[in-house]
C-alpha cells in the first residue's frame, strides 16, 4: 500500500500549495534550470546513486532538504526502483518502462524522454526494504503537511511505528494545529508509541493512557515490548492496557472469522451454482464444469489484454463476456456430446471428463501452461477499514455481493420467467411437458447454456482471488459437487445454504485445526451428513425425486 500512496498529489514542507498549483509551478520552473547554470538536482541524484547503504540516509535527507519541487518525483522513482545510471556516462536516468530487453528512459531533471536503451547498458540504483521503509517515513512526514485530508490521513497512518527522534518535535508541533479527529488520534498514538519506548516515566505513563483504547497492531506491539521491559510498574500498567485491548479484539476476531467464512462460502456458492442447474435440474454430471469456470477467468484475462490500462472497465465488461463465452462453450458441449447421452446421466460424467481434459490441454497449447496475471482494479484492492483490528478485504466483499446478485438473478429466472417455468416443467416430467407443447430440446440447450454461463461468471469472480491457469477448474470441481450434493440436488436454496455453511465451518475450524485438517473434517462431515440425510439439506420431493 505504501508505494501507491506516494502517487498522491505532491506536497512539500516548504510550500503549502494545493497540488494543482504546485504542478503548474513545476512546469514553469523546469526549463529555467536545465539551460542555464548546472542543475543542483544533478549532484543530488549522483550523490544518491553513489551512496553506500550507510550514506543512504544522508543522501535522501539532502534531497528532502533541498526543497526542490522535483524531490518528490525523484524519491518516488527511487522507491519504485526506477532510477538507473547509464553505464557509460554515469548519468542518472529515470526508467519509464522497464519491461523487456529495452527500457524507456527519461531525464529526471527535465522529464525529457530519452528514448529506449538496452538493459545491458543500464545500472540500477539499488534500494532495499530497509531503505524503502525509511523512505516511506520521510515521505509520510512530507505528506503530513498536505492540505488534502486524505493524503494527511494516509501519511499519519504510515507514521505509526516509524516515529524517531528526528520527527518527534515537528510532530508534537503539528499537534498544536487544528487537525481533524482521526488524524490527530493517529499522530498522538504514533508519538505515544515513541514515548513509551524512549520517553521518561511521566511520558510513558501518559503514553499508556493514549494507547489503551487503540486496536492498532503497532500500539499492541509497543505495549508488548513494555510488558517485556525491565520496568515492573510500567509493565504492569502496559499489561492492564493490553488486557482491555484483547477483550475488544475478541469481538473483532469473531466478526472477522464470520466474514472469512461468508467470503469462502460465497466463492463456493458461485462455483457450485452453475452446477446446481446443469446437475440438479438437468441431471447432467458435467465434469467439464470446472473448465467452464476456467474459460470465464481466461475471458477476464483476455479482456484486460484488449483494454490495457483499464482493468476496471475490462473486469466489468468481462461479466457479460465471460457469461457468453462459457455459455456458448456449454451449448457446444451439450449439442456435440450430452444430447447423445439422454437418460444415461452417469455416462455424461465420463464423456464430460474427456471434454475437461481436452479443454485443459487446449488452454495449455493455445495460451500457455503458465498462469496468467489478472490485474485487480484499484477500487477492488485494499480493504474497508472498520477499525484498526477489523478490515474487510474489498475484493472478497465484491465477490460476496456478486454471488448474492447472481443467486438472486437465477432465482428470478427460475421463478418468474417463461424459461424458468419450462425448465421446472421439464425437470418434473419430461414426457408430460413435451405433450403440453414445451420444446424440451430447446429447454435443455438453454438450461445448459445458463448453467455454463453462470460458471463463466464464477470464473470472472475467481480471477480476482486466485490463479488464472489451466488447473483452475480442477481445483473447484470437487468442492462444487460437494456443495451441490450437501445442499440437495436440484435445489438452488440448498446450494446457497450449503456453500455458505461449509465455508463458515471451514473457517471456524481452520485456526485451531490447521487448514489441511479443517478441510478433511469438512469432507468427513459431508459424508456423515449424507448418511443422516441421504438427499442433502433440501431433498427433492414428489415425482421429480424419482429415478
Amino acid at each position: 500500500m505504501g508505494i501507491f500512496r506516494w502517487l498522491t498529489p505532491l506536497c512539500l514542507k516548504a510550500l503549502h500549495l494545493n497540488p494543482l498549483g504546485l504542478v503548474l509551478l513545476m512546469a514553469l520552473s523546469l526549463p529555467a534550470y536545465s539551460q542555464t547554470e548546472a542543475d543542483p538536482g544533478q549532484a543530488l541524484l549522483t550523490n544518491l546513486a553513489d551512496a553506500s547503504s550507510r550514506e543512504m540516509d544522508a543522501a535522501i535527507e539532502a534531497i528532502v532538504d533541498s526543497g526542490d519541487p522535483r524531490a518528490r518525483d525523484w524519491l518516488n522513482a527511487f522507491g519504485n526502483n526506477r532510477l538507473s545510471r547509464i553505464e557509460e556516462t554515469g548519468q542518472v536516468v529515470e526508467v519509464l518502462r522497464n519491461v523487456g530487453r529495452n527500457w524507456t528512459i527519461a531525464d529526471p531533471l527535465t522529464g525529457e524522454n530519452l528514448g529506449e536503451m538496452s538493459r545491458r547498458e543500464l545500472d540500477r540504483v539499488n534500494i532495499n526494504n530497509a531503505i524503502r521503509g525509511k523512505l516511506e517515513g520521510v515521505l509520510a512526514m512530507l505528506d503530513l503537511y498536505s492540505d488534502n485530508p486524505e493524503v494527511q490521513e494516509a501519511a499519519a497512518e504510515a507514521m505509526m511505528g516509524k516515529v524517531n527522534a528526528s520527527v518527534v518535535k515537528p510532530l508534537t508541533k503539528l499537534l498544536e494545529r487544528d487537525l481533524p479527529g482521526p488524524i490527530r488520534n493517529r499522530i498522538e498514538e504514533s508519538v505515544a508509541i515513541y514515548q513509551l519506548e524512549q520517553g521518561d516515566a511521566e511520558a510513558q505513563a501518559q503514553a499508556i493512557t493514549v494507547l489503551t483504547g487503540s486496536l492498532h497492531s503497532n500500539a499492541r506491539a509497543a505495549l508488548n515490548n513494555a510488558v517485556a521491559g525491565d520496568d515492573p510498574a510500567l509493565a504492569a500498567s502496559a499489561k492492564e492496557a493490553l488486557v482491555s485491548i484483547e477483550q475488544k479484539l475478541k469481538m473483532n476476531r469473531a466478526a472477522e472469522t464470520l466474514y472469512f467464512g461468508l467470503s469462502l462460502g460465497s466463492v463456493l456458492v458461485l462455483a457450485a451454482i452453475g452446477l446446481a442447474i446443469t446437475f440438479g435440474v438437468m441431471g447432467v454430471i458435467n465434469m467439464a464444469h470446472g473448465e467452464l469456470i476456467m474459460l470465464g477467468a481466461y475471458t477476464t484475462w483476455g479482456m484486460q489484454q484488449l483494454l490495457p490500462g483499464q482493468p476496471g472497465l475490462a473486469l466489468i465488461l468481462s461479466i457479460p463476456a465471460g457469461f457468453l463465452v462459457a455459455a456458448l462453450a456449454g451449448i457446444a458441449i451439450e449439442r456435440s456430446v450430452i444430447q447423445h447421452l439422454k437418460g444415461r446421466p452417469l455416462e455424461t460424467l465420463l464423456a464430460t471428463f474427456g471434454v475437461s481434459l481436452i479443454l485443459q490441454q487446449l488452454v495449455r497449447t493455445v495460451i500457455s501452461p503458465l498462469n496468467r496475471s489478472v490485474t485487480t482494479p484499484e477500487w477492488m484492492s485494499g480493504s474497508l477499514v472498520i477499525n484498526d483490528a477489523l478490515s474487510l478485504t474489498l475484493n472478497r466483499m465484491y465477490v460476496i455481493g456478486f454471488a448474492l446478485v447472481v443467486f438472486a438473478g437465477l432465482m428470478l429466472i427460475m421463478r418468474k420467467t417463461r424459461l424458468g417455468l419450462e425448465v421446472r416443467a421439464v425437470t418434473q416430467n419430461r414426457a408430460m411437458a413435451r405433450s403440453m407443447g414445451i420444446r424440451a430440446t430447446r429447454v435443455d440447450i438453454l438450461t445448459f447454456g445458463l448453467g455454463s454461463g453462470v460458471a463463466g461468471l464464477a470464473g470472472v469472480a475467481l480471477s480476482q482471488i486466485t490463479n488464472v491457469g489451466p488447473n483452475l477448474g480442477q481445483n473447484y470441481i470437487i468442492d462444487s459437487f460437494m456443495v451441490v450434493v450437501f445442499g440437495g440436488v436440484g435445489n438452488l436454496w440448498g446450494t446457497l445454504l450449503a456453500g455458505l455453511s461449509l465455508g463458515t465451518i471451514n473457517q471456524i475450524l481452520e485456526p485451531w485445526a490447521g487448514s489441511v485438517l479443517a478441510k478433511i473434517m469438512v469432507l468427513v462431515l459431508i459424508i456423515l451428513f449424507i448418511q443422516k440425510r441421504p438427499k442433502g439439506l433440501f431433498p427433492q420431493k414428489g415425482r421429480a425425486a424419482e429415478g
Partner: protein
Amino acid sequence: MPTSQTWLLRPLQERSTQIFLGVLFAAVALVTLLHLIMPEGHALHVSAYTVTLLGKYLCYALLAVAVDLVWGYLGILSLGHGAFFAIGGYAMGMYLMRQIGDRGVYGDPVLPDFMVFLNWDSLPWYWQGFDMAWFAFIMVLLAPGLLALVFGFLAFRSRVTGVYLSIITQALTFALMLAFFRNEMGFGGNNGLTDFRDILGFNLRTDATRLGLFIATGIALAIGYVICRGIVTSKLGRVSVACRDAEARTRFLGYRVERVQLFVFVVSAMLAGVAGALYVPQVGIINPSEFSPLFSIEIVVWVALGGRATLYGAVIGAILVNYAKTVFTGVMPDAWLFALGGLFVLVTVFLPKGIAGLLQKRQKPDEDSNADPSKPKPQEATA
C-alpha cells in the same frame, strides 16, 4: 451370501470364462517365454521394461474388474475405488519399507528414512507388524475391506444411492488423499514410500523378480476374475443385478438389499487392494496421488470404455487406455491429453456398450443380456 460350495467352480465351466483365462494365460506364458528365451536385441525379445509395464497394466485390469463388479452388477458408481487400491498399495509399501532395514541412507535398522529426517524416534503403532510378510499380506485385504465395510455399512444402511453415493465416495478418497499428504500421518507425505529393495527375500531390482511379479499379477487377475464371475453367476449376483435395476422392488420382494450391496462392495474393495499391493513393487513408488479423485474417475472410464457389466470388458478397457497413455506420452507428448480426452468422448457417445459391445454384436445374444445396464431404468420409487 453364496451358499453353494461350487460357486467358485461354476464359472470355470462357462465358455466365456474359459476363453478369458485361456487368453490371459497364453499371453502371460508368451511374454515369459519371449523374455527368457529370445536373446536381447532380437526383434521378438520382450525386455524387462515391457514386462513391468505389462504387469502394471494387469494391476490396473484387476482394479477395473473390481470397479466393474460394483458398477456393472450392483449399480454403484464408485468414484473412490482409487482409495482401496492405494490403501492396499500402502500396506504393501509399508512391508517393502520395513524390508529395506538398515540399507536406508541413514542406516537406521527400524525407521524408514523419511521418519529419521523428520525426527521420529520410534515406529508408530500402525507400522508394527509390517516387517512380517504374512501380516502385511493380510492387511492388504483387511485394510481396504474394513474401510469398505464401515463406509458401506453407513451408506447402504441409510440408503444413500445414485449420485449421492458417487459423490461421497469421491469425498472419501479426497479426504484420504489430503490426510496422506500430511507428513504427521507417518506415511511419507507427498514423497510417499519408495526406494524398495526386496520382496520375500528376492531383490526387486532384478529381472527375475520382475518377471515373477508379472506372473503373480496374471494369476491374481485370473483369480479375481473367477471370483467376480462366480459372484455374478450365483444367486447373489442375480439379486445384485436386481438391486441395480430396481432397488426398491428387490427390497419389497424381501431381499436384504443393503447386505448384498455391502458384501459385493467389500469384495470389490479387497480386490482393488490386491491390485494396489501388486502395483507398488512393480512401479516402485506409492504416493497419495493414487488417492486423487481424478484417478478414480479414470478407472471408471476404463470400465466404460471396455464395456460395463462384462468384466472382461473392464480388463480390455484398462489395458487399452493405459497402453494408449504409454504410447501417446512418448510419441506426442504435447498433445496426448487431446487424444485421451477425445477417446473418452467418442467411446461414451458412440460405443455405449464399450468395446465389449462390439464383440458381443457378433455373437448370439448370450445369457448375459439381462445384465445390460444401458437400458433405461424402469420408473420406480426409491423413497
